[in-house]
């Protein structure tokens, strides 16, 4: 397992946003985390990336614990992410956004920067070349020098993915990457996620509401509801899981009656 989360819990005062979640992400897989609004999916991402500190539980990434690391250290360890509401650096150009994404892989020496020696120039050249490669990977090379705020919505989503890829991650977390896209854009985006895994060998985890995307691309799905994992497994199993249907559609619609206290894995 590339990522192993054990009994992870996060409470904000009286509210427990993530409760006792255990999950594993195999290396090289494409996985999805789904669940109704407010189920704790984004909180889980924020815990994985160090933006929140867990109340209790363990997160092992690539064989070492990343609990308590600050977000920049988590990024350096090999986890990159995108945000539910796009968070590009709005007044920077597309290529500059990607260059910032490479920060944790750079050797930043103030002396080199001030002296402008060959080490500095070589690194800047490498940074700019790699940023161009990534732009062309997501199909935005022709917009390299456009201010990211002025890019169309779909391009901003793709740029955010390219920026996340810039840090050479082992694992990329995509938070609702197709939200707000039209069907054609969604198809193109789904292909991009697959290419990230197939061509770059990066493990992909996505939070997604669009079930065609989720069922079409993921090899493994984890379902959260009220902060707890209620199901996990391959797409077919999730589609027919009674608790998942219940969580999404309500108890009566699902037509099943389960004990209130039954919080075990249903999968």
């Amino acid at each position, binding site marked *: 397992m590339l990522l192993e989360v054990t009994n992870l819990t996060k409470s904000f005062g009286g509210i427990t946003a993530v409760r006792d979640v255990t999950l594993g992400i195999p290396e090289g897989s494409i996985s999805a985390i789904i669940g109704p609004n407010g189920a704790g999916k984004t909180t889980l991402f924020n815990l994985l990336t160090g933006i929140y500190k867990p109340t209790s539980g363990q997160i092992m990434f690539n064989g070492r614990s990343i609990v308590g690391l600050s977000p920049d250290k988590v990024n350096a360890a090999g986890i990159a992410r995108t945000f539910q509401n796009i968070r590009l650096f709005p007044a920077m150009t597309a290529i500059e956004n990607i260059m*910032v994404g490479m920060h944790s892989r750079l050797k930043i020496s103030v002396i080199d920067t001030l002296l402008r020696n060959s080490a500095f120039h070589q690194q800047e050249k490498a940074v700019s070349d790699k940023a161009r490669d990534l732009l062309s990977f997501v199909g935005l090379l022709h917009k390299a020098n456009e201010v990211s705020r002025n890019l169309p919505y779909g391009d901003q989503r793709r740029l955010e993915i390219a920026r996340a890829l810039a840090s050479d991650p082992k694992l990329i977390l995509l938070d609702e990457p197709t939200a707000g896209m039209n069907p054609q854009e969604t198809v193109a985006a789904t292909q991009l996620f697959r290419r990230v895994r197939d061509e770059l060998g990066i493990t992909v985890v996505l939070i997604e509401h669009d079930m065609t995307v989720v069922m079409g691309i993921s090899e493994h799905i984890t379902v959260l509801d009220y902060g707890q994992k209620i199901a996990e497994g391959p797409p077919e199993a999730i589609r027919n899981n009674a608790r998942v249907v219940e969580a999404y559609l309500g108890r009566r619609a699902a037509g099943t009656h389960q004990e209130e206290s039954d919080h075990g894995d249903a999968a």
Partner: protein
Amino acid sequence: MATVTSAAQQPIRALRNWAARPAVATALILLYLAVVLLVLRGLDRRHLWFPTFSTLAFPAFVLSPFIVMSAPISRRLKTILIGGLILIAMPLVGIYDTSYLELAIQICIFTGLALGLNIVVGFAGLLDLGYIAFFAVGAYLWAMFTSQAPTVINISGLLVPAWTFPIFLIIGVGIAAVTGILLGLPVLRLRGDYLAIVTLGFGEMIRVLARNLDQPINFTNGAQGLHNVSPPPIPEIWTSFTSSTANLMGISLANVTPVAQQLLFYFVGVLIVAIVVVVARRLDDSPIGRAWTAIREDEVAAIAMGVPLVKMKLLAFAAGASFAGAIGVLYAAKQTFVSPESFSLIQSISILAMVIVGGLGGIRGVMLGAAVVTLLNLQVLKNMSLQLNALRQMDFVIFGFHVQNWPTQLEPAKYERLVFGLLLIIMMIFRPTGILPEPRRRIELQHDDVVTDEDDVSPAPGPMVGAN
């Protein structure tokens, strides 16, 4: 606008195209410089209208490098002209009339300070209202070690000789950088308004420390300040160089030492500003500068992308502070007197105003802002008062009004802060990005609604205007 061509716009556009041709532009620039220099040369202190002419001519001269910079002429010619203006024309004008040299040194000091603050506020987006504290640290560093005031350092015989001045410039950089990090550490978690309040408190703390550290052990000589601070020694060759230059200009200097000294301070000031410009530019155009921009635009995204917030913010504080430290040493040596009152909150705000009036984030704009605001503070309004007095003494009558009857309470110099405040209000309404806006800042301000909570810098105009 360009698509609509009315009859009135036609000649203007033709004129503009004509002036944009390199040969024409070069000729116009040279003509401008010649006129300004001739006017400055021809000014006579005894003349009734001297203050007015001086107020027009000297700013025109100070602004000439900026005009050259934006002119459509070759880079090489620009470098030659600007170098000539700063390294030759200004010293000559200064020898001719040392009051201009004094102004030029002040402009250097404030330009350096504004550029340093610009790193913190403009590049990294950390609103610092206590920036003058680092300047104070540098000034007190040199003053404490050379002042003849009865401080503990003087009494224990630890005073340093004046030739250590260049060494202290470097020590000033180091000490101020450390102070910057010390300020940075507790405020790392704060943003925007909260950060501003804490830095404001820090600035006041340093001033209060300077005022009260005469008890129980006298370090700073308290509110009386440190007097008889050593200026750096002037090499013999420099004095003779100054007097022979003056002789070449047809001026015989009665007392050459103060002129030579001012000239030396001017060149040290220019050197410091030049270093600051190079450092600021190189930091900005590097991974460090990109990281600062990222932090300024979206702190959460920046840290999630691997930008180490702590390190980058401390670096911004340290870099900004270090410049102020060196300039503080220069200031103390030039004034030969340092007191806590020179480092009040209003000074921090003035420097911030220079940064914002000029164009937050842009190096050229910030320099222009520093020059404009310093001239306004130190020359324009003061000269207007002098002019009024001259007219009063002549019993000048304008449109049947006796200038003598103008009440002394209404002297322009007394309304310095009012004019300054009005300038800021007008700027923020009509040109919030400054005189020479930095392109990225313009984009950031245009769509302010998108980055509301992250935009640390936007609250700046509020406290500034209110402080007047």
